[in-house]
């Protein structure tokens, strides 16, 4: 493996790039594998304090970082049904946990693969939790989307300095 430093853009440009990638990758993952459409962007801060289903992962490599996704419980159920091709009434909590983890894994991996200044990365297994009053744990670039019946937000922190 090369020890060559990764040349990333300046912070504001990098944040803008990550934000654009989060939007395009989330939309692509939702449409391709969950058969769900993004209607429009939403307020990323609006989910704080609300009931949410959350999935988080840490990734190591060059660079390392963290990724977080949170969704309205109804959206988590709808996405699970879409992914598995079953009725929403058939969805179990275990399936929701697993499918939200898959979304977390896919969207993070897709964004990192598209970032351009990522040499390699290893995604840890995502952990899905539920909270009555969501509080973000990852401080990074956050984007939120309005889907049919609720919102979903994603947040990516890339730690170039700690790689």
């Amino acid at each position, binding site marked *: *493996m090369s020890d060559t430093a990764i040349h990333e853009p300046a912070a504001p440009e990098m944040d803008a790039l990550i934000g654009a990638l989060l939007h395009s990758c989330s939309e*692509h*993952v939702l449409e*391709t*594998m969950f058969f769900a459409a993004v209607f429009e962007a939403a307020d990323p801060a609006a989910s704080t304090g609300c009931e949410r289903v959350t999935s988080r992962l840490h990734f190591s490599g060059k660079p390392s970082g963290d990724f977080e996704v949170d969704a309205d419980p109804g959206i988590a159920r709808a996405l*699970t049904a879409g*992914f*598995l*091709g079953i009725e929403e009434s058939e969805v179990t909590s275990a*399936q929701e946990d*697993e*499918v939200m*983890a*898959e979304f977390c*894994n*896919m969207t*993070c*991996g*897709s964004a*990192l*693969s598209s970032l351009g200044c*990522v*040499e*390699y*990365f*290893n*995604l840890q*297994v995502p952990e899905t939790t539920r909270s009555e009053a969501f509080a973000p744990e990852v401080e990074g670039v956050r984007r939120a989307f309005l889907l049919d019946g609720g919102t979903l937000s994603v947040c990516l922190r890339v730690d170039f300095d700690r790689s």
Partner: protein
Amino acid sequence: MALQILIVDDSPAMRSFIRRVMKLSGIEVEQYFEAGNGEEGLAQLAANPIDAVLTDINMPVMDGEEFVRKMRADGAHQSTPVIVISTDATTHRIQTMQELGAVGYLQKPFGPEQLRNELDRVLGVGHE
């Protein structure tokens, strides 16, 4: 020709999704075999006639890299096509898997058309 497909992924939901997309793609499958990690994948290969393998990379017990390495070291499975299905599309990862013996690489997210194209490519378009 209907295919015998081995899916190696630690996520039952992902294995279910792959079966669903295979059906949507129109690929004719005679039987699916499934494994939750590379070790189980090797056991399935030893016990069943497999036409193609679809495998994840990050798995517990035995990951995709070790699975493909051991599969290729086994004379009986040196030519069985392996398609990696992963979120990781970095050059580093793709090259590593190709060097180990994977002949196809499908980045998540993917749909029926991408899966069919990759299977057609590695098996030959006339596999049906």
